[in-house]
């Protein structure tokens, strides 16, 4: 059977670092990039005698996320110990949630070429992150940095509802957008604060029995997720096609070779010896806390997208880009409060503004100008005070200096010439200088018209009001 006769089945496990100020079981800072082992204390170093104390912010974030993903938030959940030895795990166990997680049975709607699709979320639980081992640090030594040990994580596990690599990527992007909207995660795959493992299996099309699955690790970009899943699907199909059996194992994505390779087999899998954490009582979340979190829930990306389309008259394409990240959506709405034409505003956002943000590498939060100033600029373009092209220059200047658009237009002399007399003089001059072309035009070669417009604009250094230039040229040429 060719690949097309197989149905891939994919589920994702996402680890998202929570944006709390302090760690999950001690008061140490969660800041990224500190000097190694700077953000540590006896508790997160796993000293003898230490005990964990739960950071309540972590619970708030978990409840918020659970509600946003339409989960059941459990009023009682239980902490467990996951036991294994590794130098980056100071206590020799990770405090996590196992059989009684805080949230269960949610859903996330994603867009696919066939339309909307519901991906079920099986569970969300809280746990502590491990530290980092640094190998080949010199002198044949390995070093351990425990700054990350105890940083709070949410693990979000989907049901195996994804059917191809594109759906997996779409799910991951949509989930990332939601978490960033909620303010619980920074969505940074490269720094590892948003991580993803994929469970992949294949089965003959039409079958209802899932094939043996493999867990893929080291997928630290959307591109790697897509490539790894696609590679793994074809690998598993090849195994089956050549008469073999897919064996359950953990496989690592090899970025350089573009293949997945076996990391450990089922037989080599750890027995984590989970048991309830005796140092922490079961976690109770009150109805009031759940209600309060529900009330404080922000508008989520999908709801915002629908609203942007109806409220601002935007096509789905525009609305999607504008709502992908909450700061951009918020800024758009702030501008829209000063400027009525949503589509025109969107054009400026999707064109010039996003180009500038990208080129200058400026975060939206550090923007030099105000929403009112952007609206003022667009108003000036509408009124013909500046040409649309000159307006782009003005925006660039606003972006860099934060000066008011009116000041920039005045300073740079970018105001558009709408004085009919002045334009007429230039038109007459151009037509006189190009008598030959005028002949051709009158003889029916209408494409020469563009040449005249270009010449006039050039002579006016781009400042001529294009509508007036057009009108006057046509009049003079006898149309």
């Amino acid at each position, binding site marked *: 059977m060719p690949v097309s006769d197989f149905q891939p089945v994919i589920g994702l496990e996402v680890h998202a670092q929570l944006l709390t100020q302090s760690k999950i079981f001690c008061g140490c800072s969660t800041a990224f990039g500190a000097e190694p082992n700077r953000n540590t204390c*006896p508790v997160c*170093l*796993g*000293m*003898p*005698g*230490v*005990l*964990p*104390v*739960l950071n309540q912010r972590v619970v708030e974030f978990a409840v918020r996320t659970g509600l946003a993903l339409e989960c059941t938030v459990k009023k009682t959940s239980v902490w467990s*110990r996951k*036991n294994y*030895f590794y*130098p980056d795990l*100071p*206590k*020799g*166990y990770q405090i996590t949630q196992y059989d009684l997680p805080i949230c269960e049975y949610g859903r996330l709607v994603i867009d696919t070429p066939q339309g909307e699709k519901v991906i079920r979320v099986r569970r969300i639980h809280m746990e502590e992150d491990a530290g980092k081992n640094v190998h080949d640090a010199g002198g044949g030594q390995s070093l*351990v940095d425990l700054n990350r040990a105890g940083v709070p994580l949410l693990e979000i596990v989907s049901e195996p509802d994804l059917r191809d690599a594109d759906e997996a990527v779409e799910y991951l992007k949509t989930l990332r957008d939601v978490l960033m909207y909620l303010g619980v995660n920074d969505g940074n795959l490269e720094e590892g604060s948003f991580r993803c493992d994929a469970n992949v299996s294949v089965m003959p099309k039409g079958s209802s029995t899932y094939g043996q699955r493999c867990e893929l690790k080291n997928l630290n970009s959307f591109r790697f997720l897509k490539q790894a899943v696609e590679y793994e699907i074809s690998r598993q199909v090849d195994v089956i096609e050549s008469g073999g059996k897919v064996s359950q194992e953990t496989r690592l994505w090899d970025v350089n070779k573009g293949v997945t390779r076996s990391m450990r087999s089922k037989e080599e899998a750890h*027995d984590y*010896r*989970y*048991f309830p954490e*005796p*140092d*922490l*009582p079961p976690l109770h979340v009150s109805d009031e806390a759940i209600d309060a979190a529900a009330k404080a829930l922000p508008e989520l990306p999908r709801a915002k997208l629908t609203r942007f389309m109806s409220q601002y008259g935007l096509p789905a394409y525009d609305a999607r880009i504008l709502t992908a990240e909450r700061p951009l959506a918020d800024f758009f709405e702030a501008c829209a409060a000063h400027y009525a034409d949503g589509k025109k505003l969107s054009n400026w956002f999707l064109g010039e503004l996003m180009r500038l943000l990208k080129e200058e590498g400026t975060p939206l939060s550090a923007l030099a100008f105000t929403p009112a100033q952007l609206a003022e600029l667009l108003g000036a373009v509408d009124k013909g005070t500046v040409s649309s092209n000159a307006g782009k220059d003005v925006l660039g200047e606003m972006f860099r200096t934060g000066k008011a658009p009116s000041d920039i237009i005045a300073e740079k002399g970018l105001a558009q010439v709408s004085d009919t007399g002045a334009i007429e003089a230039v038109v007459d001059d151009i037509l006189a200088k190009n008598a030959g072309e005028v002949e051709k035009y009158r003889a029916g070669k209408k494409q020469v018209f563009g040449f005249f417009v270009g010449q006039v604009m050039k002579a006016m250094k781009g400042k001529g009001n294009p509508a007036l230039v057009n009108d006057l040229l046509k009049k003079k040429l006898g149309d």
Partner: protein
Amino acid sequence: MQLTDLTMLELAAKLAERAVSSEEATRACLERIRQVDSKVRAFLRVDEEGALAAARASDARRKAGSPASALDGVPLGLKDIFLTEGVETTAGSRILEGFVPPYDATVVRLLKDAGLPLVGKLNMDEFAMGSSNESSAYFPSHNPWDLARTPGGSSGGSAAAVAAREVFGALGTDTGGSIRQPAAFTNTVGLKPTYGRVSRYGVIAYASSLDQPGPMARTVADTAALLQLIARHDPQDSTSAAVETPDYQADLEAGVRGLKLGVPREYFIEGIDPEVEASIRETLREYERLGATLVDVSLPHTKYALATYYLLASSEASSNLARYDGIRYGQRAKDARGLKELYALTRERGFGPEVKRRIMLGTYALSAGYYDAYYLRAQKVRTLIREDFTKAFQQVDAVLSPTSPVPAFKLGEKVDDPLSMYLMDVFTLPCNLAGLPGLAVPCGFTKAGLPVGLQILGRPFDEARLLRIARAFEREHDFFRRPAPL
């Protein structure tokens, strides 16, 4: 009479009237240690400098008329399971040899804040796993009442030091009887508080759901006074109870008239030493004479306590002791090649046989495929044991029993027979499984002159009543005045 023969409260009274200085009392302890500890071997290390500095600071406060607490200046010893900033702490294990903690346990901080000079760290079974102090990686302690015998365990060093009058009192920990059994073996008073009454922060964990620090002293009143200082809610221990601390001295002399005292039939079993049984029976009769009513009660799941305890305690221990991996602190096998060998050699050399036995037992009980049959089943039985007590306490105010089925046994006698060693704890384990307070108080001696201890078990947070019941008996006798024949 020597200074060291005073009780804590007697010394405190002399300190308060400035008849004696804390420095004198501390020097007296240090001198007594020099005299007798080569025989008793209660101390793993003595912090002479730290204790004297604390004593002098205490004297300055007394002089200024602003003592930090009622016991300000009373020298105390600590089981080596309590982390002491700047003072080596090993839990009786080779693997922590040379480990100098960067912080104080909550109870250590409370004692320092209350002005008590801390004389040194007391010997114990390795990681509190044992009933005779013989699993200490360093040396066994000896019972001051018969140096050939064990002072019990795991807080054997603490009990021996108090009984030998090397310190006025000490802190121990009790996971399955580790405070009460050594107290019973040494003619001292030991109290295991209700689980959650005293903070476990900074106490090296053996079995987290069972461990509980508590006071050890020569008298009931001393025990109450020491408990007063350490029974506090601690935000750093999530299992610490937010229950108000009563005045433990207030009703101490109130007697037992009108109290109903339960006698559990399951605690008077075959195999109990006849002299121990006779002593306990006589004590029960005395309580009747003092006005209490004895009531037969049944704790039917007692026979499962031993198996339940060893499954749960070992399971938790197998996880709690994973951090001793040679990576960050303590001993490391420096000759190991590769990570796996580093772990294996460090732990092979660092842990003694009893600790290895329990780690293996616990690892097995938690393994996939065995978890339900062992760990989970044991948790269910634990609930039944707890319910036994809940029912009993509907009928009675406290439950009385022997602390140990036998008096102090000979060092070396049971070392090669772990099961018979485990059986030593059969009367003390249920209390830990149920999270209840339990107290051991001296109630007599065998013909050979070995101490016998009565155990009193109570409702959660009913320590004051246990102390009151113990005091009612103590008042009629002078056992605590009797010095060990050193």
